[in-house]
């Protein structure tokens, strides 16, 4: 994971792509789910996606079905900005499932980062743009 310190030359787009891409790769690769979540998210994480709130434990629990079903996942970040500890981005996730289905989701994200680069809070709206 690349660390966001607010001073880096790393672009916001690169940061967002690396953050979620690296997290997902670690999840798929296996290993301790709690340890992976704790590397990317603060203990008080609040992730709200389409009105559904996940805290740390629910985020950890979510990784079990993800591992069962997901083969690969790519993040195409269309635009992103960052100011201080805040980041906003619009990106597309392409998820390949174990039985062959591909799910394409466009995401609009607002995030708050901790000083160490971990995500502290995100609010996301998503829409399924999968082409049948």
């Amino acid at each position, binding site marked *: 994971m690349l660390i966001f310190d607010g001073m880096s030359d790393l672009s916001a787009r690169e940061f967002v792509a690396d953050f979620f891409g690296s997290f997902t790769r670690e999840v798929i690769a296996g290993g301790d789910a709690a340890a992976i979540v704790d590397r990317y998210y603060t203990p008080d994480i609040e992730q709200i996606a389409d009105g559904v709130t*996940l805290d740390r434990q629910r985020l950890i629990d979510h990784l079990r079905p993800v591992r069962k*079903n997901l083969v690969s996942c790519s993040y195409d970040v269309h635009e992103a900005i960052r100011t201080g500890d805040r980041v906003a981005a619009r990106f597309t996730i392409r998820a390949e*499932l174990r039985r062959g289905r591909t799910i394409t989701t466009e995401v609009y994200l607002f995030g708050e980062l901790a000083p160490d680069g971990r995500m502290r809070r995100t609010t996301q709206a998503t829409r399924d743009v999968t082409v049948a």
Partner: protein
Amino acid sequence: MTTFKVLGMTCSHCVGFVTEALEELPGVESVEIDLSTGTVALATDRPVEPAAIRAAVEAAGYEVER
């Protein structure tokens, strides 16, 4: 139409995981899921055993509400 609730779905990918698992069941013609309520509606061309539905959902990592 068969309807039931699935516990644990939190995002559109969860919906895709459960949809894919249920579409594998013989007789299932379509799967509609309301993420906000966890409600799943199955259209089938023959009776599908509840145990088979439950097993498919559990294999995907979720649980059918009892």
